[in-house]
């Protein structure tokens, strides 16, 4: 479904991503793990079009998208749920969800999806007229996920969905992401919590210094001595 080949991204003269290649098959849940600054977020930004790669190809369902705008990429079916949730703080909960369906031309379908999201996250419906900036961290995460779903994507990119959440909410968030995958949406997730990321994934990539260091089925990597020592705390 998604193929990244030889991706190179630069910030000024610094290479954040060097010759990174990965692929995601339809229906998979793939995670990227690695240390801070390894290039995971940069990779997601390149896929969703926020960053123009210096070199490499990104192919989604047969079409090259490495030069496309975020708008065009979203239109092809890739949604990006960014790091730090990034809800629009002064827009209401409902307006945030409406922004999620900004490109859609079927108001009835979008309204239906919003109803589904409200049923899944009743707290969002209770607070639909409240400014999103007033929600708690966990509620903002639900809103950010709901907003990403509003575009009816076929592939969702999650960037550090558990970051800054209380432990019980971390588990809830991972449950929601599994649920999204079980409904047939492909997921590519960046996650610092390496144990959870490997445990829930079909496949994982370990990213080090802007390139793939290891690739494998999640549970295989969980047992890998190097991964154990470097990322799972022994």
């Amino acid at each position, binding site marked *: 479904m998604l193929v990244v080949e030889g991706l190179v991204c630069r910030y000024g003269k610094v290479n954040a991503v060097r010759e990174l290649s990965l692929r995601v098959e339809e229906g998979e849940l793939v995670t990227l793990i690695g240390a801070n600054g390894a290039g995971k977020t940069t990779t997601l930004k390149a896929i969703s079009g926020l960053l123009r790669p210096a070199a490499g190809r990104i192919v989604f369902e047969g079409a090259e998208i490495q030069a496309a705008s975020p708008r065009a990429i979203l239109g092809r079916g890739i949604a990006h749920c960014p790091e730090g949730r990034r809800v629009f703080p*002064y827009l209401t909960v409902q307006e945030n969800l409406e922004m999620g369906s900004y490109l859609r031309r079927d108001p009835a379908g979008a309204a239906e999806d919003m109803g589904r999201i409200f049923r899944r996250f009743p707290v969002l419906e209770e607070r639909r007229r409240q400014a999103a900036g007033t929600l708690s961290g966990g509620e903002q995460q639900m809103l950010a996920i709901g907003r990403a779903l509003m575009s009816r994507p076929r592939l969702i990119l999650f960037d550090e969905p558990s970051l800054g959440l209380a432990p019980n909410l971390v588990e809830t968030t991972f449950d929601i992401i599994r649920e999204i995958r079980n409904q047939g949406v492909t997921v590519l997730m960046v996650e610092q919590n390496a144990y959870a990321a490997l445990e829930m994934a079909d496949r994982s990539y370990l990213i080090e210094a802007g390139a793939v260091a290891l690739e494998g089925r999640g549970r295989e990597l969980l047992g890998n001595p190097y991964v154990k020592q470097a990322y799972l705390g022994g």
Partner: protein
Amino acid sequence: MDQFLQHLLNGVILGGSYALLGIGLTLIFGIMYVVNFTHGELYSFGAYMVFGVVAALHGNFFVALFLAVALGAVLGAGIERSLLRPLRGTSIDTTMLVMIGAWIAMQNAEQLLWTGVAKAIRHPFPEAPLVIGPVSVSWIRIFVFAAAILLIAASHLLIRRTRLGTAMRATFQDRETAALMGVNIDAIHTVTFAFGSGLAAAAGALLGPVFVVFPTMGDLAALKAFAIVILGGMGNFLGATLGGLILGVVEEMGAGYISSGYRDAMGFLIIIVVLLFRPTGLFARAERVG
């Protein structure tokens, strides 16, 4: 008391147009972070367009008003595309210098085209004022006020209730995330600047027939617009509306009770007082546009 009522009425009516001017600037200055020195020139552009269409082309007054607002928005879009888009991401100082240059160029173009002599705009309203008890008000001022209120309400609905307005607010809260939602960021910048410019042109088109039209009329208007934005809080739509009304009333009161020579000083007095005591603006707690 009668005199007070008369001043109050004049102030509110003048304030309606000031509010238009302030809303236009608060959109551009408060949420795009562009210190728009051309705002006053768009105001005088609006007034000159009405004058031009009515006097030179013998056009209908109302058609002239509509054209002035529409052309003001087009001119604003042109300024954004040609001057501001290439500078996006540079420091606020750079855009400020460029906008000062544009301001000087536009003002001199007006002087070249229309000369420095003040012009009066003919309007179709009766000269005899409407008298209600102790107060009287001219029909043109009633029309100007009604039109200003209508435009303010329409702008409010556009920003609050439409898909475009929501995208505008989202863009200025978090540009990158708005792009991820599929918003065309370049287009939003152009539309916002055009919209603010159209409102400035509308204020000029409405007040032009009340006063007279001359090339430097925009200078004072721009300063008043900044006073309104500071009074109401940057990017605050409701603040700009109330700020405009307050400035109108304060000016009329100052002119009436102190001396008409102090009319234009009132705006600056307001800036000084607000910056001293409430630097985030009187209505800083109200929800921002962006």
